[in-house]
């Protein structure tokens, strides 16, 4: 599934419009502890987090993730979106909870990150 298809699945919006959504999503992960995500994430992972600051983009970039998904319409800081645009990391936003997002992704066969 591509990021564009994932966006449709979740009924999400792209917060940094213009970013490339053709990347393949390889796996999914839900966590808000950045070091934990550093330890577990992988290239292509779609990462669901309530964190909205700059360092989220740093982690996503360093792990070469496919996108970041922000649940429950949490507001994302403008500087975070600027950084995301610069690093070409799509930031998706939806009103759904992390639990619902995870359920939808799991139902479509997305699994845990494999390093």
């Amino acid at each position, binding site marked *: 599934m591509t990021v564009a298809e994932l966006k449709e699945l979740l009924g999400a919006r792209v917060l940094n419009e213009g970013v490339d959504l053709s990347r393949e999503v390889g796996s999914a992960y839900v966590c808000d502890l950045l070091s934990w995500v550093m330890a577990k994430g992988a290239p292509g992972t779609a990462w669901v987090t309530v964190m909205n600051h700059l*360092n*989220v983009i740093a*982690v996503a970039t360093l792990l070469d993730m496919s996108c970041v998904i922000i649940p429950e319409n949490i507001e994302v800081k403008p500087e975070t979106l600027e950084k995301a645009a610069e690093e070409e990391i799509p930031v998706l936003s939806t009103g759904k909870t992390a639990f619902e997002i995870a359920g939808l992704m799991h139902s479509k066969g997305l699994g845990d990150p494999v390093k």
Partner: protein
Amino acid sequence: MPLIAEVFPVEKDDFVTAGEASAKIKRTLKKLGVDSALLRRISVCSYEVELNLVIHSLGGTIDFQVTQDSVMLLVKDRGPGIANLELAMREGWSTAPESVRMMGFGAGMGLPNMKRNADEFDIKSEAGVGTEILMKFRLK
């Protein structure tokens, strides 16, 4: 002689630029053609150590060197040093303040993540003086 040698200063509490040294290191290594699995391990280590400097130190430097067969990160800070190194190396143990935990840091995974991902990991610390971490990665 190293092929590449660069020193990145990292300042205490600077969460805005935190991660930039790691991003530069990653870009440099990617250009050199370092394979993605190794690149990931080096990125985890550089990011964790960079954030440790921001969160826990009084400021310091990351000395990044690439030779024909290895990548080295030598990290030195200006203090305050780690009181109990054995505890600091334990997964889940952290001295990060509440404000930092609210940002998703302070999981107590930083040093263990570094040790797990580096081919060689060495840490020296003296309370009241400072901490020095050396990490090496083999290039095939």
